[in-house]
């Protein structure tokens, strides 16, 4: 059975990653996912962004289940 999670990137995070979506092996938790993303995209380390798991904002470390959709949400400032 596949153990993938689906990443959706927004705003400047997508720009820096060079893609708006990405499938990854489930690293288990949101913290582990962040570390994996930082390894793969070091430029993200200096950026602040929030995570939403299955369209729910998650600020503390949380468990990821297979098939979860994780949105990477940086703040926007323009107006």
């Amino acid at each position, binding site marked *: 059975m596949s153990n993938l999670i689906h990443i*959706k990137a*927004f*705003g*400047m995070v997508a*720009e820096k990653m060079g893609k708006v979506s990405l499938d990854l092996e489930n690293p288990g938790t949101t913290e582990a996912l962040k570390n994996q993303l930082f390894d793969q995209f070091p430029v993200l380390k*200096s*950026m*602040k962004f*929030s995570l*939403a798991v299955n*369209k*729910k*904002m998650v*600020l503390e470390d949380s468990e990821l289940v297979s098939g979860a959709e994780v*949105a990477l*949400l*940086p*703040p*926007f*400032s*323009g*107006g």
Partner: protein
Amino acid sequence: MNRFDRQYILNGFGIDGQKKLRNASVLMVGAGGLGCPALLYLAAAGVGRIGVIDGDTVNVTNLNRQVLFGEKDLGKNKAEQVVSHFQDKYSDITWEIFQEYLTVQNAQELIADYDLVIDGTDNFATRYLINDACLLHGKPFVFGAIYQHEGQVSVFNLGEKACNYRDVHPEMPGPNEIPNCAETGVLGVLPGIIGNMMALEAIKVLSGYGEPLKNRMLYFNSLTSQTYEVELTPKGLTSGPDSWEVLENTDYQQACGAVKEMTWKEAMGKMNQNVAFVDVRELDELPPLVCTGLMKIPMSVLDSELDKLEDAEQILIFCQSGMRSQKAAQILSETYPDKAIFSIKGGINALKS
């Protein structure tokens, strides 16, 4: 029949909804890309009293999205120009004009006088200030922001168990971490759409009609026309100031890592021997600026030439548009924390206009 007839006959809105709008007051912070479209519909819908605060003047590059301004408005104050536009259109709205920026000094008094605040600003420092001031006042505010082809909208601090901006982004971003429209570019219609959504949310909150985006953030991508909705959870505790005294002593510019800026006019008045005047553009960028005492230290070599500025008491930095100079000012402030370091607003582009 009157100008609100089509709202009166709307099932569930009716004369009651209209009365609520008539008796309501809104403070629009920022009359720019989001403020202009939002104001068009708030005024058309009949919000009774509208305050507009903006210290900025109309620039030709604003005209692709700040649709209340035309060529005749260039150089004029934005708050004043939008209000004069509406005064010709409708006679039944009370307008209040504030030709200044929202600051820690004026936020308490200004916001106290309105039922709802709308955040149409273009920088994090003011966004966090609006958030914190509305929390202290217990007032709801409509939030909207854009980044290139994406926008976001929410309603914060509305009623009980309500989220605020710090529940979404607890920490203020650093300088130049997230560029604004001046740097990334923007199709004018995106802030038009997001500004309209903000007006819609404001009307829902004020009239009690429909379901405002409370504890929800809506994202919209103008290139794909897709939306994405995220559910927010209030934390109950906020990392913002817990009193007006603390707020007044918060340096939001500094907290957001923003550097000090000055205009060309102010910069010209400062020229003397203890001031280093630095062009951080690359050497081939046009037009060159020729004046005595000018130092050319391109961004690409700034790190290795920091010692050239050792003797200056003050450092004034400029580039083409005022963005790289902010970054340079940030770098220099870390090397020389005791020097007065300023980035010149708008760069060479501002000097030309």
